């Protein structure tokens, strides 16, 4: 895999096309594994997409007593292996982003696996493909670096500086999800 997932929160328009598309991916059984949240609907319409950060030291995997959460050689954190998962839901409590969910009917955990069946061939996951505002992108590392640099410059030009107390007004506009 040569590409990374790149999120730019400020671009999100809250349409949840990523969630609808996630249901269409792989074997997701019509259950989305990414989420879109309002920062504070009372104040503004700012939303942000939330998907698995593919942590380098993923809490979900570390707290799994059954070692059911595998990490691929590219660093993608997979859903719990059906045959190993004991249904303890430690992973759902452990993740700081609330990504792993528990399917009580099937008695197993499911989470964003960065659409490994696609991304291992450098095909964009459906969420990133369809995102109409490009708040979610599947791009080269270099492209991500360039975007970050340009955005920083634009923020300077526009005089945007995060201040204490209004951090949500300038939510973290971007971060890459590394898989190397």
């Amino acid at each position: 895999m040569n590409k990374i997932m790149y999120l730019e929160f400020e671009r999100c328009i809250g349409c949840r096309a990523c969630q609808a598309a996630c249901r269409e991916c792989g074997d997701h059984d019509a259950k989305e594994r990414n989420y879109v949240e309002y920062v504070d609907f009372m104040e503004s319409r700012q939303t942000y997409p939330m998907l698995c950060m593919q942590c380098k030291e993923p809490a979900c995997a570390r707290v799994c007593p059954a070692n059911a959460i595998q990490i691929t050689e590219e660093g993608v954190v997979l859903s719990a292996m059906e045959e190993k998962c004991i249904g303890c839901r430690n992973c759902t409590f452990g993740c700081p982003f609330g990504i792993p969910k528990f399917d009580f009917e099937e008695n197993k955990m499911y989470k964003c696996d960065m659409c490994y069946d696609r991304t291992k061939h450098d095909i964009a996951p459906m969420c990133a493909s369809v995102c109409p505002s490009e708040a979610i992108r599947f791009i080269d590392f270099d492209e991500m670096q360039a975007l970050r640099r340009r955005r920083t410059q634009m923020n300077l030009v526009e005089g945007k500086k995060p201040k204490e107390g209004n951090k949500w007004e300038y939510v973290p506009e971007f971060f890459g999800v590394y898989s190397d």
Partner: protein
Amino acid sequence: MSVYQVKDGVKNLIKPGEKLITTHCCYCGMQCGMHIRVNEKSGKVVGVEPRYDWPVTNGKMCPKGVTAYQTIDHKERIKTPLIKKNGQFVEATWKEALDLIEENYKRLQREHGKDALSVFGGVSMTNEKCYLVGKYARAVLGTRYIDYNGRFCMSSAAGGFMKTFGIDRGSTLPWPELEHTDCFFMAGTNTAECHPTSIQWLWKAKDKGAKLIVADPREVPTARVADVHLDLKPGTDSALANGMMHLLIKEGYVDEAYVAERCNNYEELKDSVRKYTPKYTSEITGVAEEKIIKAAHIFGQSPKSVVMFARGVEQQTKGVDNVALYSSMALLRGQVGKFASGVATFTGQGNGQGGREHGQKADALPGYRKINDPEAVKYISGVWGINPSEMPKEGVSAYEMFDEIQRGKIRAMHVICSNPAVSAPNTEYIWDGFKKLDFMVVSDFFLSETAEFADVVLPATSWAEDEGTTTNLEGRVIRIRKVVEPIGESKPDWEIFKMIAERMGKGHLFPYNNAREIFEEFRIASKGGKADYYGITWERIEKEDGVFWPCPSEDHPGTPTMFKEKFGTPDGKANLAVVKWQEPGEIPTPEYPHILTTGRVVFHYLSGSQTRRVDFLMEQCPLPYVEMHPELASQYNLLNGDKVKLTTKRSHMELEVRLTKAIRKDTIFVPYHWGKELAVNQLTNPALDPTSRMPEFKVCSVKIEKI
């Protein structure tokens, strides 16, 4: 093993045993390109894949687009004709349904004359079908009463463009050029929710430093990131546009050479806008003076700007004026007919553009001809093979047809691919009209709220079971492909028209065997008209990623950018709009002290007949609600989630409150995608624009009570 299709370096996933069929989304005017996944063995639709090589949308889809395929084989599809017996629908054969239609149509024509029948069309259909609806009404039924739901959606934009530019094409530029625009002025358009896939162009331009001005009573997602948000009071657009033009002239931002060479009425306009000082404009619109001044400076200083608008400014009794005034803003800056700049409206319905050009309007014939023009009547009669004397006269607009029902003039109605029981204003009047009809036929693929009133429901195919063309919001004519065979006994609309025509003794007028033959006839019908499609062929559409009309001959390249040299008016010059601000049809009174405005949410499309049947979309937004500023809510002691009763002069309804500061304090908002007791259009004002005959959905006075 999966197969990967590579085009332009981008891969699509094709699973074993599946094929991808390239087509376009069935919903809004963006007409996003997509691939539908079809199981090769069963021939069934199984999913969707992005289509990266479509230049307008580059694989982007909104949640409606992603789930659109789920309506094709939906369990609630109507699969056989239905006939109402003792108030209940029972399944019937096509023969039984057609017998009934023939018997009633002939009886009513005999007893009350040909105008006793009427046709209510829609523009979520292909160009071919839209063309046939006009021909069916006039040549087969011989009635003057035909109109369509575009009257609730696009007609003010059409009227405004006609007045200003002389031709009504929704966008004067191709949208991929928007990436290079320096300034967007967006009025009355919740673009992020109604046309989400267009946002990529806006954001791309913003990345390069483009400025964004949003005029809207709500802080819509685009307003959130705008340089200026002009939070105007609903119904005051014409004052704002006049105020903007006042400043453009005063500050010397007018492209004098362009205006002198290409526009009429400049001196009158100068006089007319003189009194719209920032102070006066601010008093009317409620927008702070400094915001208006800032917006005028940004707009005036941008080398390449576009003015974009949508239903927010159009669905008003002054909709045509609003469109003409906002278009004039762009003209003053000399922006129309140039690269990456111009004027555009966001088409609400899938084929809102094409559907209004082909003779579904009460006053129009194919190719945007006028029915009261004897030359046009002569030409189209020739194409159809009827005598010009047989061509019915001009009828009345969509809402006014219901007045004719009340007067007993219209006795029967055939509603095609439209759901006025939800989408028309003052819906209780519409429901009453349907009940008064002697006979009612509906062609649709779901049992819509309108279909429930019908005597006969004919199962039409969905967008994926027939082929044809549509015209997207740029004016680009594109191809819709057949993805699967018709479900059950459903039939394409053109076959339904053909069968009824045969029953009415006019079968010879509908000799078609497929959609392509209709397109070939339609090309000739549009030839020489303002919307000239003659040079467009299905092959060209394929090869050139769509062809822009007007395209008068096969060697003509089409017209991506309109008005490069001259406008469509008789003298080739644009008419600057000289119009004063006037109050909307209803203004707040002590009894109805607040303003109600309506609109869409991203999860639903029009009357919701399709999207309310998709699980994902319903999970996101199952019910309508009323959006309200916390300060207004505190007047009524309302908390988030409380229930309120909204009352207007027409009716009342109950809704849940959703509090947000992202709306004006004097305005409340309700989305309109639900039927029956959940239809906000029970409350809306049917006052019509004098030119476009479009109702004022966007402004009415309302009373709030806590329950």
